[in-house]
């Protein structure tokens, strides 16, 4: 879903972070461990 519905030719790291977090929320729920893990990972590497 990230590649097919969210990202586009000029998407940057921030856009990818937003997209993967949104997709994790769609697939697993807004309060899911999965969504938190994705969000935490982007923070860990300094994109968010």
């Amino acid at each position, binding site marked *: 879903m990230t590649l*097919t519905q969210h990202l586009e*030719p000029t998407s940057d790291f921030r856009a990818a972070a937003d997209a993967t977090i949104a997709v994790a929320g769609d*697939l697993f729920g807004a309060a899911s461990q999965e969504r938190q*893990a994705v969000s935490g990972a982007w923070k860990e*590497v300094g994109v968010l």
Partner: protein
Amino acid sequence: MAPGGLGCCIASPDLLAAVAERGDPEDRRAALRTQAASAALRAQRNALTRLLRELGADPEAALGRATRTGGRRTVYDVDHGGESDLPGKKVRGEGDPPVADTAVNEAYDGAGLTYRFYKAVYDRDSIDGKGMELVSSVHYGTDFDNAFWNGSQMVYGDGSGRIFVRGGLTKDVDVIAHELTHGVTQLTAALEYSKQPGALNESISDVFGSLVKQHHLKQTADQADWLIGAGILGSALHGQALRSMKAPGTANDLDRQAGSMSGYADLTTTAASTSTPGSPTGPSTSPPRPSAATPGRRLGASGT
């Protein structure tokens, strides 16, 4: 969808440059030969992408790959020829028994594992989601130290023994899946091959390359090594793999990939900006690490 985002090669321009800078004369020859051939390919593809965009053409139709084949695999031997000789002579089609040439069988099997991963996990039927034929050519060029997706098919060099061991470029399914994923990205998000979008393009290929391997080995994210190109490095490189998503920058002695944005830098040229110290796979590939279980589902290219 705009055509574009073709992606490139498994060995990045900055790695080849580093080998050329540090290596002995034979290492340098191997790196420069591969660098020159890879740059020519990129230029050719960028021109094609621009042309298609200007014409507003459907890239699949324009490239003559609109045929739906249910992900059928076909492997060709280009017999040391170049881009204009592709795909070469057909040596193994879908369902054919293995042949004597190991590279042919590895390219065939790797394409199959990649196809199965995308179908099983994302219900995506081949690269385009519509059953596109998976075409591979082996024995590209002479001692060519790279593998690449050329916009419509997979191409593998033999390796010179310097940057990659001979026969190494078809050995790792993560390398094969990395390149095939450039096809998926090209036909979905079409990320530009420059700066951050280019780095994401590379990163996505590394992530899915590793996920295909994990799927094949039935590993969890915690069990996986998250290495790209493990065990195939030639004598000019010292280390365990080409890249490591678990520990960016540690895969080999010329691995300068950053582990966080503090080490990220755009490179000055389009060709190099996707693969520099600090850029591509670093920041964006780290997410799978902490997210256990099935990161691909969370991070990835859903075909649905």
